[in-house]
C-alpha cells in the first residue's frame, strides 16, 4: 500500500505471530515499573493457579499497537485505543496478532479492530483503535 492512500474498510492487516520470553516480561516490568510478581515469579504464578508466569496485558496491547503502526505509514499514531482482556497468555505461547479495518473517515482517521488469538483459537485480547493516518493528501 502506498503511503497516503487510505485503506479500504474490511481490509485485513498482515497478521503476525509473536512469542514472549521471560526476559522480555522482566524488561517490560522494569520499563513500565510494574512490580506485580505474576509476570516474573513462576512460584508465585503457580500459587495463583497458573503453570507459569503470564504476559502483561499492557504488553499484549503494545504488540497490537505495533501491528497497526508497522502496517500504517510512518508517522501514523493511535489517538484512541481501548483493550479488553478476555484471557491470560502464558509466557512463550504463540500470540497470533491480527487486525481489520472497520471504518475510515474522510479526515484520515482509520478505525481498527485488533485482537490476539491463542493456540486454541481463543481471543484473549480484544482491542479497538482510532489510527491517525499519516501522509494522506491534504
Amino acid at each position, binding site marked *: 500500500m502506498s503511503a497516503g492512500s487510505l485503506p479500504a474498510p474490511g481490509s485485513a492487516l498482515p497478521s503476525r505471530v509473536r512469542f514472549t520470553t521471560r526476559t*522480555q516480561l522482566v*524488561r*517490560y516490568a*522494569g*520499563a*513500565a*515499573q*510494574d*512490580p506485580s510478581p*505474576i509476570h516474573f515469579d513462576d512460584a508465585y504464578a503457580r500459587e*495463583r*493457579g497458573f503453570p507459569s508466569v503470564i504476559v502483561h*496485558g*499492557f*504488553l499484549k*496491547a*503494545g*504488540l497490537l*499497537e*505495533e501491528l497497526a*503502526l508497522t502496517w500504517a505509514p510512518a*508517522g501514523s*499514531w*493511535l*489517538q*484512541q*485505543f*481501548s*483493550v*479488553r*482482556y478476555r484471557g*491470560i497468555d502464558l509466557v512463550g505461547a504463540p500470540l497470533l496478532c491480527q487486525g481489520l479495518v472497520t471504518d475510515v473517515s474522510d479526515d484520515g482517521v482509520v478505525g481498527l479492530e485488533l485482537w490476539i488469538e491463542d493456540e486454541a483459537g481463543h481471543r484473549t485480547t480484544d482491542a479497538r*483503535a482510532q489510527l491517525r493516518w499519516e501522509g494522506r493528501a491534504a
Partner: protein
Amino acid sequence: MTAPTTEGDRMPPVGPVTVAASSLLRWGAGADDFSEIHHDDAAARARGLEGAVVHGPLQVAVLVEQLRRWLGRPARITDVEATYLAPAPVGEPLVFDGEVVEVVPGEAGDEVLGCELRSRRPDGRTTVRVLARARTGPAGPGSALPVEQLRRALRLGEVAGTFRYQVQENDLEHFARAHEREPDPSGRVPATYFGALDPVERRDLHLDGFLLELPFPRTGGGNAFNEVEYVRPLQVGDEITVTTRYTEVYEKQGSSGTLLFRVRENEMTDASGAVVATSRCGHVLGFAVPASGTSEVAGR
C-alpha cells in the same frame, strides 16, 4: 460471651478503670488534639473545669470497641451518635457499660440493634452517652466483600492522587526493547505507554491493598480493560502530571466467583497545563465468597 439478641441484653461492663496519662497522650497525638484541658489542671480550671478532663471521643472509642467485641462477627456497627454530658476528671475511674434498647428486623433478613452505651464516673454521673446502631448480618446484599469500605478507601469520585512523571529517552528505549523493537527515532511515544504513567500500575498509588488480606480465597485478578484517548502523542521530554480518580466500584458474579471491579480515570496534562490524554482502566479481583442465601449482587 454470647452475642446479644434481645432488648435489655447487657454489654459486659468494663471498669472501674482509670484512663492512664499515657493513653491520654497517645489519644491526643493520634487525634491531633493537644488542647491543654486534657493535661493541664490550671488551664482546665481557667476554662471553668475542676481539673484536666479525659477526651470525650476517647470514651466513645472505648465504648464502640467494647460493643464491637460484644457483637462479634458478622455484626457491624453502622451508626454512632455521642452526647457529652459531664466532664470525666483525669485520674478518676470510669465504668463503661450499655445495653440493647431496641431490636427491629433489617431489610436483608437480619436484625438492627439499637444500643445505648455510657461511660460513668464514680458518683454515677454519665459523662458520655452513645447511641449506636448495629446490623447483625453481613454487609451488602448477598456479599461479604467490604465494598463500602473500598469506596471510601479509593475516595470514589474525588481526586485519589496527583503524580508527576518525566518521559525520558532511556525510558522509551527500555519500553521499546521490552516489545523487541527499536524506539521511534522521532521521540514519539507509543500509545500504550500510558500504562507506564499510571500511578496504580506503578504502585505509586495503592489504596486498596487491604483487599489482599480479605479472608476469602482469591480466584484470580488482573487488568480487565485499558482505554486511552490522546489529544496529541506523548513526546520524549514531556513532563506529565497524572491526576487519578476512581469512578466506579462494583461487583459481578462470574464463573470464577465474585468479581470486584475498580475503575479509575487518569487525566494527563503537560507542563503547560494542557490535557494530553485521558485514560480509563478497570482492574478486577475474583474471590470465592460463600453464598449467603440472599439475592444476587447487582451488576454495574
